[in-house]
């Protein structure tokens, strides 16, 4: 029976995790609320809120509602799934498998990015239908590409956050405390430039702050964000995302070691 041990493959682990995330999503109707119904509600509310606020109100409505519907899912979806692993008791067998948990998280992140984009698309369709016209984007193709990139920056932060869910069952509590601050601080709600200058250094530690500012440059004609302009934002977003992805691997290794020391993998 005992065979020569097979070796895990990072790609295969990521795909398996993505596949399981999709299967679990399909099996659970409660997901329809955040992924389908919430974007429609956000789109309608946002359209009504911004109506009458200048010629670019449609863009603000789409960006505001789009970010609102997808940021949480993308940022915390993988952490939440880890929390579910604790509740189901699947964290132990998953950690005990040869595949590093980081790649399991990556698979879930991919699914969260896709479902976040789907939310953004729903918002776009809802707002355009409500307005009866498409928004006058400064750079439509660039905006679309940047939109996807914003999701990736959120996902990069999400991967690092997910490590805390492996580390402790109290990660959700910490997330709830920081959720609103993160939402405001990264410019999901409104541009970071309107926050007090002292808040900038903290905001700029997070890749989405840079990427969202870059997105506004591409979407809103005449937008004035950080003083360094679109290219500065893009370079900052790429740089900070790379840093987050680089530290994610090391954080996961350390966190795994710490939980094996603490012995709290089965706590929920």
């Amino acid at each position, binding site marked *: 029976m*005992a065979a020569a041990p097979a070796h895990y493959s990072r790609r295969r682990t990521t795909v398996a995790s993505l596949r399981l995330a999709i299967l679990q999503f399909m099996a659970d109707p409660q997901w329809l609320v955040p992924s389908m119904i919430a974007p429609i509600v956000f789109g309608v509310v946002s359209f009504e809120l911004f109506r009458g606020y200048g010629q670019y109100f449609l863009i603000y409505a789409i960006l505001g509602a789009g970010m609102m519907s997808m940021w949480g899912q993308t940022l915390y979806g993988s952490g939440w799934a880890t929390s579910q692993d604790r509740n189901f008791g699947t964290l132990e067998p998953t950690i005990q498998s040869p595949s590093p948990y980081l790649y399991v998280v990556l698979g879930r992140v991919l699914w969260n990015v896709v479902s976040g984009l789907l939310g953004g698309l729903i918002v776009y369709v809802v707002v355009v239908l409500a307005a009866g016209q498409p928004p006058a984007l400064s750079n439509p193709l660039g905006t679309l590409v940047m939109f996807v990139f914003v999701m990736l920056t959120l996902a990069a932060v999400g991967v690092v956050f997910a490590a805390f869910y492996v580390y402790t069952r109290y990660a959700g509590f910490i997330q709830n405390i920081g959720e609103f601050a993160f939402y405001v601080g990264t410019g999901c709600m409104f541009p970071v430039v309107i926050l007090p200058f002292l808040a900038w250094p903290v905001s700029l530690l997070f890749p989405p702050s840079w990427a969202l500012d870059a997105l506004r440059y591409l979407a809103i004609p005449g937008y004035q964000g950080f003083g360094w302009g679109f290219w500065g934002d893009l370079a900052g977003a790429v740089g900070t995302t790379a840093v987050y992805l680089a530290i994610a691997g090391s954080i996961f290794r350390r966190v795994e070691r710490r939980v094996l020391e603490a012995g709290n993998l089965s706590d929920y």
Partner: protein
Amino acid sequence: METGPAIETRGTTRAFESRKGFLFREKTRTEALKGVDLTVERESIFGLLGPNGAGKTTLTKILSTLLLPTSGTALVLGHDVTKETEWLRPRMGLVLGGERGLYNRVSGRENLRYFADLYGVPVEERERRIREVLERVDLTEAADRRTEEYSRGMKQKLHLARGILHRPQILFLDEPTIGLDPKSARETRKLIRSLVSDGVTIFLTTHYMFEAEELCPRIAILSKGRIVGRDTVDGLRALVGGDRTLEAEAYGFDDREVDALRSLPGVSKVVSEEYGPLMRLTMRVRTFEATLDDVRSRLPGHPELSVRERRTSLEDVYLDLVEEEAA
């Protein structure tokens, strides 16, 4: 061909620290394992017995790389469980069992598919192996149902299927037959035996004495974090003073009578227990020594006396050792 023991622990300890009270300022430390020395031979079934909270699951988790020991060493297949997890994990299987540990919203087959990918089961063999293990645990018909619809016993079988899916060299089974009906439990024991003949080493924890006696050539008994006995079942019987147990029951015995039984040749231990108006004296006796007639002759004046002899069971051994440790 790899040689050396499948498992070797030396002075393995594990302490858990927890905090409670206002602002978590109260720190408590629990020593779950207090220096465990164990050797398990390859391609055998080793049983670990012990009461709840003895440290069985803690030891199983240390050996299966889910927990780090506080001190001491633990080698599995000759490799250090604290440093060589990458080498070890593809070669070991773990069945913790119970209601949890599965993705309940998806089918049993999907659960297996996911873990087959995580364990790197060759893609071309994956479906065949899933079919094979489902058949081995008799879950083929239920394979495509969501696991939330499974009974406890079916979940237990699925845990077992997952544990053997990647064909491990060593399998850790934490109470594998708990929740199974007698027929399924018997089939599971049969499966465990067949795994050993396939070359797998089994490390098994159980509360069922008959199961340990039936399956495990060698057994260790863990109590309060210490190994209080380890040997073959016969060796353990000898450890508690004999492979025969004599029991005498009457309406009360005095100390003199108890001492008289203690002085019989081959009697190592006399324990008295009361059952309502009845008192029972239980004696562990070595083979070919004190007989039922000897006991009767030392207890005159008890017309209601009933004496009987039976083989010392593993349960007797277990209770003797655990009670000694507790005392």
